[in-house]
């Protein structure tokens, strides 16, 4: 163990890997598939509800549906249930808008003890900030490509 440090590091990695518990990827994928699907089904239910009882069309129903899902996420996060669901569902709760909502809301709750401005305001987008940044940036790039292609008459 005291000889060449570089070989010991690789040797140790080998030894440690034998004992490591792997993430149950297949189980996680199946859980995520069904849980993500369930959330989308609920979303569809909410959308249908708004279209049926209120003056929304298929084009305009997206916003109130998203808002409702985020509101439900807020309640589940605030009551401390969401993180337990997420441990089971994984990507199933992270990928839909609920995951984004939870990232914002959990950070806001966590930093309430540092006040509204420096605490909640300063930390609310700690996790979700990069989602917004790269979301907007990739939308910009895609729009740019489309505009150029249209200008050149390719599409």
């Amino acid at each position, binding site marked *: *163990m005291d000889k060449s440090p570089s070989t010991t590091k690789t040797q140790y990695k080998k030894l440690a890997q034998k004992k490591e*518990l792997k993430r149950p990827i297949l189980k996680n994928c199946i859980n995520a598939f069904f849980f993500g699907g369930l959330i989308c089904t609920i979303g569809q239910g909410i959308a249908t509800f708004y279209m049926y009882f209120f003056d929304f069309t298929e084009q305009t129903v997206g916003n109130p549906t998203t808002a409702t899902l985020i509101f439900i996420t807020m309640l589940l996060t605030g009551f401390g249930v969401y993180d337990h669901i997420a441990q089971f*569902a994984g990507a199933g709760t*992270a990928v839909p808008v609920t995951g984004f909502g939870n990232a914002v809301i*959990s950070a806001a709750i966590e930093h309430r*003890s540092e006040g509204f401005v420096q605490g909640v305001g300063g930390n609310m987008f700690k996790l979700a900030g990069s989602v917004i940044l790269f979301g907007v940036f990739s939308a910009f790039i895609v729009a740019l490509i489309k505009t150029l292609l249209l200008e050149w008459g390719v599409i």
Partner: protein
Amino acid sequence: MLIGKQTWEFENTPTIISTGIVGGPFEGNGKLSNTFDQIYADLWLEQNSFEQAHQLLLESACNHAFKKINRTPANVQFLIAGDLINQITPTNFTAKKLQIPYIGTFSACATSMESLALAANLINSKNANLILTGASSHNAAVEKQFRYPTEYGGQKPPTAQWTVTGAGVGLLSDKGKGPKVTSATIGKVIDMGMTDPFNMGEAMAPAAVDTIATHLNDRGIEASYYDCIITGDLAKIGRLIAIDLAKEKNLFLNEDSFLDCGLMIYNNDQEVFAGASGAGCSAVVTYGHLINQLNEKKLNKILIVATGALLSPLTVQQKQSIPCIAHAVSIENGGV
């Protein structure tokens, strides 16, 4: 007295005469719940922030230790303690409240044994006759600093660990009744290039094995000298790795007497992934369960090897590997 490379032997019998252990709600449902002096039913401890709750944990543990033997902070020469929060503020604020001359310590989750080793050394060298020492951690305060917000729904891998909410302290005296601290080995920082902060056991195991091997070598004893060798928070994976790694060094650790605090504190049905961790983990198990066992003579010679991962969220994001340390302290019924 220094023996061997990095071990102190204490011939003047520093004695643990009193302890104080408090825990949070999750610990109250654990295996060792009856060893706590007080269990708080709420993670907030009726405070305004998790950090203040953290401070109250330590304060409360100290008060329990005093109450048991009718002493006050005025009788104590030094407070040697630490925690995991930035600039160890929960301990600093407790020291402010108690008004005991204070030495703040940090070795991540090995803080408990670093503090006990220093305390025993001061008592042994007659530079003090009563020292308060310990460590604490608070699950939500630590998660907030090192990982994600408490309510964030990130899926944790099975190698992750659960930070203990609790504080354990001991009063160390040059005389009195109780188990004696007989020796201590101060560990070196060992880094085997591991980078996964969700697998601390794997990163810390080499440090634990190095310290155990050095300790046994310095004292000139076999592992079987101790009734138990107990690591701090290697948890499931780290413990198994440590046994294998020790074997490569021709050091045979008996599966039944090589225990881990991180695997002792919770029930099997509690969702803690690989096991418990945190500065409070080794502190509450040592000053609670293990000292009880020593006092009841169910155990007579134990070696506690607290393990710490010396990382910060910054070093992890900057893709540095995880340096680790382990400090060992032997506690025995009867002196050296």
